[in-house]
Structure formats: structure tokens, C-alpha cells
């Protein structure tokens, strides 16, 4: 029973959930629950990766034993496995970083409060992400989306300053209205096709009005939660003002969750609409996001705002290839590999960037760019982390970002989308401008830094560097990721009419 991967799927979700409940029940031991929960979850995820790599075919777990149409199926294919792996890796880094960041300094009740409530909320978020990546049912995805949204908003509002609370409120309202639009889309699909399972829906879906309505609603709902260009206004204040580990979580994982659903729904259920205007529109909005986000990032004077706007820009890359991906649909895995590697490289690099920005804020007390002058002497590891993460964000070789852009550009040019190439390479140069602006402050030798720099605990200085190095090492994973994604690919093919 234990060797069978289907046994492990529910545990990937239940372990962090139980850890979260435990962390809430016993506030004084909340970190102990979180620590054990993190390790066990990561172990289960890595274990199931090994099992999946061994079996090389999609793992299914029919919850409740009833099977797809009536019951809910948990589905683990290459794509969801990679996302789970990414979440586990970043999760380990966040848990270790948050231990130092939230440790109650002067024993104030406020810092104890933050410390006690961070752990259950973070574990809930992790459980929600794992449930989201494993679910094969549309309504179940709605519930996981809400679970994800609530924990993300509560984590953002952990820092109880007015600006943060307003940002959290705006985030909550956008998140909720996005989810409700998604739900209305699901209702239309259920009305039209009578099933909620994505794979079955893919088999019966044909180009009917309710499919188009559902596609529009689901896409707008999820795009609001992924903060693609016109709906990005809530992201920078929320990601910049939140606590450092929280903004790393939001930028690296939470926005990717809703994008994953968009990818999954479009690839499988809405494939008859592959050539309609919606994918083209998404690609156009992606281009606008890259240009707008990069321009805004170049104007920022606060470090975390700069990194937040960089997220808005980098999210645009994920949408560029959607029309090509849907047209190729499973037979050509390169666009999907490009998107997934980019998504992972951005997650790792952006988490590293936010954590090192957090370190700077923790040590220097303010994150204005001008206050970062000459920090190389005092915080070499943090600045190395930011530099290496910057290399991946600009997508300079050797980095995961580069390989992703290489795959994307190849696909784009093969289909003759030469303007995508200009946007992608231009975006890279613009990213270089705002990353190098930060680095030039860091390399500047200020004569005797004015305020003394608070020493960083070890558990805070190493995670960002580790994540940044991982973002670089992704350059060698091109073949691995492609082989892993192929595991899910037949699932895409077998459903094609």
C-alpha cells in the first residue's frame, strides 16, 4: 500500500493541514508544529516525486471511492508534481527564514502575536496550494482558491499598519470577486455539460455559447487573482508592504496558483476555444504587463516596491505563449516546458529577492534605495543572494530564467511571432536596468555606514542565497523538466477529440 503513490497524495494535503490545526491549538508550540509539519510535508512531496518518476504515469486518487463524475479525483501528473516540488522547496526556505524574522525581539505582545499566528496561516496556505495542485475538479478548485485567498490576505494583514490593512482589503475584495466570477464560470460549465471533472469536461466540451461564457468568466476571474496587467493594481502595495516572508510567498507561489488553474482549465477543458480571441488577448495583456511593469519598476525608490512591480512585469511572460501552447496542445512540450521553467525560476529568484530585501530592511531599518549604499562590507551574503537572483530575473545565462526564455523564444520564432521576441528581449534589458540600479547602490563604497547594522541570524541569511543558487541551477534542468512534463502530456492528448 505504501509503495503505491496514490496512498501518499492525500497526505501531501492533510499533513500541513493537521500541522496548522496543531499550531493554532497550542500557540506556544506553534513553531514546533510548523517545523515538523514542514519537514514531513517536504519529505512526502520529495518521496512522491521519486515514485512518480519511477512509475512515469499519471497517479489518480478517487476521494471517497466514487470516481470522477460523482466524486472528486486527485490527479498527480508532471505539471502538478513540479508545482508541488517548487512549493516544497520555497516552503522550506520560508519556514527557516520566518523563524528568525518573526522571532519575538523585545518580547512585545505584538511580536508574540505575529509569531503565533504566522505559523498556522502559513501552513494553511501550503495545504491550500497542495490541494490546488492536486485537484482535478472545478468546484474543488474554487474551495482551494478561497482557502488560498483567505490565508494570503490574513498573512498580508499580519503587519497591522494602516497602509498594509488597506492593501490587504483591496487584495481580499479583488480575490473574492475573482473567485465568484470563476464560480459563475463553473456553474455555466456544469449547466452546459453536467460534469465538474476537468478531464471529463475536456472529452465532452464543444464550441457552444455557454463554453465561451464560462471561458470568459473563468479567465477574467483567474486573471484578476494572478494580477495580470489591467488587474495588477492590488499587487504592488500588498506585496511590498507585507512582511518579507509573506511577500516572498505571495509573489512566488500564491499568484502562480491561480495561473496554474488557468493553464490546467484552458489546456484540458476549454481546448475547443484554443484559436479564439481570448488566448490572443491574454498574450497581448502579457506584453503590456511586461512593458508597464518594467517601466514602473524603474521608477521606484523603495526596494520592495521595485521588486513588487518586477513581479507584475515577470507575470506577463507567463501569458505570452498561451496561444502557441494551446495550439500545439500536448504534442509539442517545449512551450509548456518554457512556461514551467520560467515560472519556477521566477518563483525561486523572486522569493530570494524579497527575502534579501527583508534582510536589508531588518538590518538597516528602511528599504529606500539610497539607504543601501555600501552594504557589501556588512552583508555580503544577502547582497550576493540579491545579485544572483537578479541574474535570473534578467534571464542572463547561466540561469533558469535564461533557459526558460530560450525555450519561449524558440517556440515564438518557430511560429513566426517575431514581435514576442522583441518584447521578451526588451523586457530582459529593462529588468537589467532596475536590477543594476539596486546593485550599483550596493557596490558603492560609502565612507563609514551611518547607522550600525543589526546582525542577521544564520537562519535568515542563508535561505535567500540558497534559493538564488537554485534559480541558477535550474539552467541544467531543461531535460529533466521536459521528461517530467511528458508524464502529464499524454493526459492532455488522450482527451483530445
Amino acid at each position, binding site marked *: 500500500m505504501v509503495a503505491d503513490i496514490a496512498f501518499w497524495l*492525500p497526505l501531501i494535503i492533510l499533513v500541513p493541514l493537521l500541522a496548522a*490545526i496543531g499550531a493554532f491549538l497550542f500557540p506556544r508550540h506553534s513553531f514546533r508544529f510548523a517545523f515538523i509539519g514542514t519537514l514531513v510535508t517536504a519529505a512526502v512531496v520529495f518521496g512522491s516525486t521519486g515514485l512518480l518518476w519511477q512509475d512515469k504515469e499519471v497517479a489518480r486518487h478517487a476521494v471517497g471511492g*466514487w470516481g470522477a463524475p*460523482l466524486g472528486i479525483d486527485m490527479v498527480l501528473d508532471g505539471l502538478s508534481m513540479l508545482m508541488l516540488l517548487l512549493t516544497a522547496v520555497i516552503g522550506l526556505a520560508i519556514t527557516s527564514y520566518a523563524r528568525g524574522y518573526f522571532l519575538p525581539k523585545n518580547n512585545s505582545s505584538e511580536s508574540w502575536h505575529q509569531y503565533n499566528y504566522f505559523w498556522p496561516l502559513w501552513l*494553511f496556505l501550503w495545504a491550500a496550494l497542495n490541494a490546488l495542485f492536486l485537484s482535478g475538479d472545478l468546484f*474543488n478548485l474554487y474551495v482551494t482558491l478561497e482557502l488560498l485567498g483567505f*490565508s494570503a490576505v*490574513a498573512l498580508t494583514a499580519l503587519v497591522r499598519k494602516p497602509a498594509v490593512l488597506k492593501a490587504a482589503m483591496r487584495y481580499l475584495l479583488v480575490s473574492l470577486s475573482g473567485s465568484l466570477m470563476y464560480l459563475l464560470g463553473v456553474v455555466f460549465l456544469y449547466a452546459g455539460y453536467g460534469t465538474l471533472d476537468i478531464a471529463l469536461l475536456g472529452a465532452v466540451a464543444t464550441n457552444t455559447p455557454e463554453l465561451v461564457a464560462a471561458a470568459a468568466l473563468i479567465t477574467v476571474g483567474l486573471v484578476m487573482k494572478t494580477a495580470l496587467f489591467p488587474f495588477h493594481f492590488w499587487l504592488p502595495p500588498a506585496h511590498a508592504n507585507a512582511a518579507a516572508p509573506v511577500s516572498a510567498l505571495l509573489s512566488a507561489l500564491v499568484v502562480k496558483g491561480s495561473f496554474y488553474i488557468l493553464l490546467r482549465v484552458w489546456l484540458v477543458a476549454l481546448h475547443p476555444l484554443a484559436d479564439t480571441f481570448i488566448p490572443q488577448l491574454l498574450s497581448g495583456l502579457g506584453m503590456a504587463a511586461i512593458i508597464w511593469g518594467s517601466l514602473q519598476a524603474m521608477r521606484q525608490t523603495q526596494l520592495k516596491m521595485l521588486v513588487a512591480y518586477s513581479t507584475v512585469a515577470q507575470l506577463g511572460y507567463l501569458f505570452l505563449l498561451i496561444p502557441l501552447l494551446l495550439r500545439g496542445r500536448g504534442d509539442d512540450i517545449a512551450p509548456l516546458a518554457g512556461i514551467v521553467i520560467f515560472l519556477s525560476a521566477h518563483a525561486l529568484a523572486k522569493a530570494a529577492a524579497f527575502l534579501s530585501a527583508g534582510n536589508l530592511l531588518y538590518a538597516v531599518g528602511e528599504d529606500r534605495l539610497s539607504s543601501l549604499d555600501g552594504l557589501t562590507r556588512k552583508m555580503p551574503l544577502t547582497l550576493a543572494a540579491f545579485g544572483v537572483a537578479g541574474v535570473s530575473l534578467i534571464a542572463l545565462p547561466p540561469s533558469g530564467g535564461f533557459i526558460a526564455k530560450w525555450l519561449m523564444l524558440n517556440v515564438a520564432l518557430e511560429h513566426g511571432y517575431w514581435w514576442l521576441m522583441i518584447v521578451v528581449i526588451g523586457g530582459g534589458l529593462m529588468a537589467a536596468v532596475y536590477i543594476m540600479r539596486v546593485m550599483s547602490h550596493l557596490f558603492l563604497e560609502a565612507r563609514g555606514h551611518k547607522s550600525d547594522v543589526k546582525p542577521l541570524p544564520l537562519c535568515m541569511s542563508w535561505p535567500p542565497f540558497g534559493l538564488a543558487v537554485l534559480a541558477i541551477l535550474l539552467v541544467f534542468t531543461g531535460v529533466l523538466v521536459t521528461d517530467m512534463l511528458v508524464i502529464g502530456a499524454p493526459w492532455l492528448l488522450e482527451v483530445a477529440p
Partner: protein
Amino acid sequence: MTAGRGFVLLLIVLLVLVLAGIIALVTPDKARLADLAIANVPQSGVLNPVTAVLLNFRGYDTLLEVAVLFLAIVGIWSMARHARVWIKIPDTPVLVVFVRLLLPLMVIAAGYLFWLGADFPGGAFQGGAVLGGMGVLWVAAALWQPPASFRRLLRPLLSLGILAFTTVALLTLFMGYNLLQYPPAQAKTLIIIIEGAAVLSIGATLTLLFIGGFPKKRED
């Protein structure tokens, strides 16, 4: 009615017209999951098809949903440090007397609704809602004078529902079944256990949602 609002109104009216048109087109008598669900109700251990869907066929949704309830409380307590329970004594005795009469009745109604759920419309959430209503009345009528030790019980009471659900789920998993696949014989008892724990937790959660934070000690 500024220009901005007019534009938004226009857009939304268009959206509503299009969606309404499409939903009207969808023929009502399409063969959806109804027949399949109703056909499987006998094996689900309960007679009421809605409870069968809610707790057996799509039990996983309900597990996550109870988790959402639990998360709401954790989220609110993380935002609002302490909530001052509203203890202004209401001036009209009518409310206090009426509430004193009503509370026990509501508890009975909740219990009945919960027990009925297996075979007739009702169930944990309906019972929990009534309990929640009772809690709100209890607080609103300033009769909330829990003993100090009660506050230590709050967290276990809140997590009762989700804990029951996850332990039953793990139980079925480790007994070799799929997650939440109740063995046919014990299906009804397991569902009753889950629903029982859920009723109490939902009642407590809804009351505390109304209070809006960890209730402070009673100092007049």
C-alpha cells in the same frame, strides 16, 4: 451619476444581458449528475441525497470547507487581537426574558435539525447555523458570562469539527480504503460523528465570527 459610474453600469448591464441570454438557452432537462447521484444514495449510508452528496460523494469538498471555516476564525483572530464582548445591559427587559426563553428551544431545534439531516432536509450546517444564531442572541442580549475556564476551551471547541473530519479521513486511508471512502457498514455512524462535531464547531465559529476576536476577560 458620474461618467465613470455610467460606463461601469453600461458594461455590467451588457454582461448581464449576454450571460442571461446564454443561461436561458441552456435546456433545463439536460442529463446532469442528478440521476447518477440519486441512484447511488442507497450505498451512501444516508437517505437524504443532499447529505449523501455533501458528506459522501463530495466529502472532500466539505472537508476543505470546514477548513475554510476554521481558517476564517484563525484569520480574524490574527487581525483583531482582542474583541471587547458587547456587555451593555439592554434597558428593555422584554429582550432579556424572550432570549432566556428562546435559547434552550434553539438548542433543541439545532439538535433536531442535525439529527434529521441523515434522512430528511437538514444536517450539520443547518443545525450549526441555528446554534450560531443562538450564540449571537446570547451575546447580543448581554447574557454572555462564561466562566474564565471556558476561554481555554474555545480553541479546542473551534477545531473540533476539522479535527473530527481529518481523523476520520486518515482512518479510512490507513484502513486501506481511499480517502473518505467509508466502509459501507459504518458509513452512517462515521457521517454522524463528523456531523456531530461539525455542528458544535460551526455554532461556535459563527458566534465568534460575530464577536470578531478572542473575547476579552469580563471587566465591567
